[in-house]
């Protein structure tokens, strides 16, 4: 067991131990300090993991560790990470101290319970991304539900009971079907004509899964999507999200938007696509249509909200539509864009939820008709609000842009209609320009609702609730603690926006591999040894990029 593996294990186990310690402490108001210290300290192993990760082999599972549990059934406790997992783990760890700090004044009673569950959630989130074993993944995947359920149920606002129950049952029902699909694959691989023995190792399963017939794959895909699409959430399975977001405490919303929704897209990327490649290829246009409907539909709903938190919640539905669109495009740009979207959405929407939380602590309302024009009273708050809104709009230079660009390009690229017109490498599903155009309207709609929100809450004459009185502990504008809470996200947004190449390089190998996998499963002509070429490109990309390389058939006209 290497040192890095220990660190990775620590990322999962230390929060659990701290959770136990907090849970069994005598004082019900304890928890903030240990949780804060732990979540900050977890940054150290996380940092060490990035430093030691070999990004040139991003697709290889690194720091892997596996203990056999029940050998005859192939049950293992097996962890490790490729670069995609690494980045998502980093996002989870980064959000840790942020949500703890954001909760300091927001949570006034039952702190012990709150912070204990928060730590459990932290461990489960790392576990879900680090799992290399189907069962461990599933256990962690489901185990994120429970802490979140408690956070909403105990610490939410007025309608919290209904919200928590709906959240739990809806996502749980979906993921039961996911389990069924996964079990089927395991059973399939265990058949004598396949591997012939029980295994839950994701990599092994992926090798054999494409042997399934189209019909089997379709069912497996549907089963897995049942869980993942609810989690994303993909239209029309999104109705739990606005409710859960609205009722959850700030930290809950941040984690929900920042990480838990990504479990759905991560699941699609890691399981649904590799384990049912032919079926996903077949149904990609339908999935893309759903995601585009989601982009427009949820965006327009945002526009008529008065509850600011609901607005941001629906905006998540709209944004995640881009993410799924990129996945459905099944090409390198799409996967890269989608993974970037998972990371970037966590920063900007997480930031927006924090902003709303800070406002809510002071005004105890989320109704934009009651409170607004806060720029004159809380200029720092308003500055951050505009900043995160712009990041969410997808302003170039900030985080939303790179991912949005890549997702839209990917929709353009995988195009059947125009492939005859000479688009090189236009293999692929039948997404096409219209997908990109309709998804692109999401850009305009995003501007409409986010500026509507900013215009109401930040600008215009000051409006406050009638019974408003200053908070006992909090200053009028943001306190230093709150600014420190926000800063990592804001800096992250800028760095992300200016240096997407770093991330793109990091994920290029796993993404390329996934594309090759899909291409091979579907018998498509795959560019030979993409990875080799990629390395070649990296050395001399200027020369190679400068040679125009288009196989335009002359005389092909499409008017």
């Amino acid at each position, binding site marked *: 067991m290497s040192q890095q593996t220990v660190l990775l294990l620590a990322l999962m186990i230390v929060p659990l131990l701290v959770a136990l310690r907090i849970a069994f402490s005598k004082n019900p108001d304890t928890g903030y300090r240990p949780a804060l210290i732990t979540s900050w300290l977890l940054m150290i192993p996380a940092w060490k993991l990035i430093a030691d990760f070999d990004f040139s082999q991003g697709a290889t599972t690194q720091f892997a560790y596996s203990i056999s549990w029940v050998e005859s059934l192939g049950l293992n406790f097996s962890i490790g990470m490729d670069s995609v997992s690494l980045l998502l783990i980093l996002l989870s760890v980064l959000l840790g101290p942020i949500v703890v700090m954001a909760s300091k004044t927001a949570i006034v009673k039952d702190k012990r319970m709150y912070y204990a569950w928060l730590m459990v959630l932290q461990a489960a989130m790392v576990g879900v991304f680090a799992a290399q074993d189907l069962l461990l993944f599933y256990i962690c995947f489901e185990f994120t539900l429970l802490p979140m359920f408690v956070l909403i149920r105990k610490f939410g606002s007025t309608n919290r009971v209904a919200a928590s129950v709906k959240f739990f049952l809806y996502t749980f029902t979906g993921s039961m079907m996911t389990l069924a699909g996964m079990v089927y694959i395991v059973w399939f691989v265990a058949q004598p004509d396949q591997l012939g023995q029980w295994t839950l190792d994701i990599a092994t399963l992926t090798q054999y899964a494409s042997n399934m017939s189209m019909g089997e794959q379709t069912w497996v895909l549907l089963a897995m999507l049942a869980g993942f699409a609810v989690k994303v959430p993909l239209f029309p399975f999104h109705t739990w999200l606005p409710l859960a977001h609205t009722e959850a405490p700030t930290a809950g919303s941040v984690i929900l938007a920042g990480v838990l929704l990504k479990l759905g897209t991560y699941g699609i990327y890691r399981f649904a696509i590799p384990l049912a490649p032919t079926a996903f290829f077949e149904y990609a246009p339908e999935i893309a249509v759903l995601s585009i409907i989601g982009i427009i539909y949820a965006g327009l709903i945002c526009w008529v909200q008065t509850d600011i938190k609901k607005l941001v919640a629906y905006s998540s539905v709209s944004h995640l539509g881009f993410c799924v669109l990129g996945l459905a495009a099944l090409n390198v740009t799409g996967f890269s864009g989608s993974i970037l979207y998972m990371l970037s959405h966590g920063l900007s929407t997480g930031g927006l939820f924090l902003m709303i939380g800070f406002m809510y602590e002071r005004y105890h309302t989320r109704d934009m008709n009651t409170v607004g024009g806060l720029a004159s009273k809380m200029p720092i708050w308003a500055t951050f609000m505009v900043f995160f809104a712009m990041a969410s709009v997808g302003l170039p230079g900030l985080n939303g842009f790179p991912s949005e660009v890549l997702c839209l390009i990917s929709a353009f690229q995988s195009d059947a209609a125009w492939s005859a017109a000479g688009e090189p490498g236009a293999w692929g599903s039948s997404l096409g320009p219209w997908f990109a155009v309709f998804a692109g309207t999401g850009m305009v709609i995003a501007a409409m609702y986010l500026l509507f929100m900013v215009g109401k809450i930040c600008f215009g004459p000051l409006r406050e609730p009638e019974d408003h009185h200053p908070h006992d502990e909090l200053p009028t504008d943001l306190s230093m603690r709150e600014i420190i809470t926000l800063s990592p996200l804001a800096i992250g947004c800028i760095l992300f926006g200016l240096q997407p190449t770093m991330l793109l*390089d990091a994920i290029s190998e796993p993404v390329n591999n996934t594309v090759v996998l899909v291409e091979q499963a579907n018998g498509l002509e795959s560019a030979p040894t993409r990875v080799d070429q990629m390395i070649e490109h990296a050395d001399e990309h200027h020369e190679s990029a400068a040679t125009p390389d288009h196989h335009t058939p002359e005389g092909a006209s499409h008017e």
Partner: protein
Amino acid sequence: MITASLFNSFSMPAFLADPSAGHGEASQHLAQLAEHAAQHPNAGPKWVLLIVLLPVLGFVLNAFYAAFGNKSKIPAWTTIALLATAFIATLSMFLSYEGTPYTVQAFEWFNLHYGDKSFVANFSFYIDKLTILWMLFVTGLATLIALYASEYMSHDIGLGYCRFFAAFCLFVFSMACLVMGDNMLMLYLGWEGVGLCSYLLIGYFYKKPSAVAAAKKAFIVNRIGDLGLALGVYLTFVHFGTVQYSELFANETLHTYINAAATGDFSHIPAQAQWIALLLMVGAFGKSAQFPLYVWLPDAMEGPTPVSALIHAATMVTAGVYLIARFYPIFLVSEHALPIVAWIGTITALLAATIGMAQFDIKRIMAYSTVSQLGYMFAALGLLSTTGAAFHVLTHAFFKALLFLACGAVMHGFAGQLDLRKLSGVAWMKGWGIVGVTMLVGCMNLAGLPYITSGFYSKDMILAEAFITPGYRMIGWILVFTAILTAYYTFRVYFRVFVGPQHAEPGDEHDDHDDHAHGEEQNHDAGPHGDHHSDHFHPHAPGWAINTVLVILACASMLSISLAYIQKAEHHGWVGSMVAESSASYHSPYAAEAHYAHVEHTDMHPVAGPVGTAAPGKVFGMDAHAGMILVSGLGAIFGVLVAAYFHGPKGWQGLFIGGRTESDKCRMDAIARRAGPLPRLAENKWFVDEIYAAILVTPLRIISHIFHWIDKLLLDGLVNLFGFLPRVFAWVIRPSQSGVLQGYAVSMAGGLAVLLFVVLVIVMNSGGAA
């Protein structure tokens, strides 16, 4: 007949059959230049990055000042110093330019390689003459306007002063990225960046709901255009495999297309390639406020006047022109794009001019005139005259900035008064002489008075082109007519506000056009404005900073006449020489031919244009340029005289034909009363905003509400229904749980019996079978 001709003219006229005579040659030259830049990436001197970095530094410093609550003019001086340095850097970039484009890279931005393709868009800059031309006036004007704003915004010191200059610097940075970027994503970054700054600055007085609404409107309408631009960029990548200028302009496929287009044969150019230009065009329409996306610009006047001058008159709104000029090769390969650009530009020019005629708010008049002049630039682009467009951009930048700043001085001095009915004879008031004179210079340029103004030369170039390029005569006449309207509405402002009997009603501090309504915490009544409710109002004459800037701009407007004469023979003037060696370089075959006709009096083959069969290049039997000097010159003078007659004061100030004796009574009033609903329609901007609201915004909002309810009732209802079904089922079978223990036991025993029976039957059957 007219409709038919309109339709005909919506496709590109066939070029001369010999591609080497037209843009074929230019295209090869361009390819060589671009290839040179592509083969030597990042070869430029690094100090060029200063032009981009200095504004960023300004932004950061101003943000710090804001954070530490600076209450002095230091933000302004910092900004001015940094921007002036950036201007000097631009100048030296201009002087050291050696004829070949080069790129300078700051850092890697997008770098995605896959298969045989790569998506590369670095944070780097592409310098050619078009870039230099634009950057010269962007940084130059930004410096001047920052100086102006240092005085203009002084009421907000300690309040929004830092915020203003921070956004100002950010704007210059974004504009630099837009103009200098070496790939389409950098252009897009700048494009959205200037949009953001525009949003922040229009909404500078964020407590005013109208300012907030205007800012929002500007951003969203722009965003519609941005969508077009973004899709165009993506499509460029999908089709040509690159978004970097140096590679794109050297792209063989593109040059194959250009050569095909040169023969007038568009059928071999894939639709995908032709769509790129149409999509980019939408972006240009949004940013440059062209019909139907122009509605945001007049509302944008809610921002402080320096902002209106810099962003919404001189620089940002010309980004659309830059876009089309920069991607001219791509526009050339699209059959319909340039004709549409020409017609949209023309329609916009006319429409905005008619609205401008009926407005009373002088800043809004200037806004509509900006829209109208941008229409001229677009028409020029569509008429295959990038030089004309670029020249008009340049002259317009100077004189429109001048006009706005002069109006701003008035607004500043008269407590936000902008209504031309409430001001008169301002030029004669004490301390307002410079404003009066410079305003006159600006008005003359805008009106295009012959020979003595730069606006005349640039407009003439566009108008002549309309008669030279076949098929566009109608555009030519519409633009001439618009020029007359322009002269009229421009001098309407001058005759009413700046000359005549002295009269001034101060503006309301809290009305819509108030620049200084910055909240209750500021006590304005103690300021030099005085209490405007009292009878003795003292206008606040502009100080040295404002006057200096006005004088410099007036001089620049006049001096840019000379640009028309530098290198006139080879390139149609200095601007032509700047455009010539860039991607916007395009030698219209018609222009060449017209000039031959002019020089050698050779007979040309008459081309059957859609409008009439007159030989191209002839107006009233004269060469187009000569004809236009006559027609547009006389038109401008006529427009001024009409304005003088209807709005001018009695006596020499009204050129002896005016009849106005009071500030708000003039001959136009009587006519307007008798003209029926027309003036009211024009004053209300032909109700375009209301029409948009009725056919776009309201339905969309209704749909959104419907979606909201669908979501709440239908989708969530279904989910709840699934949650409810088990309850119904439970309700049905509940009575079977009687609570009597024996009841359960009986059912268990019964079940067991049934099971046994079944097993027995199976066993017996199988036994029978065996």
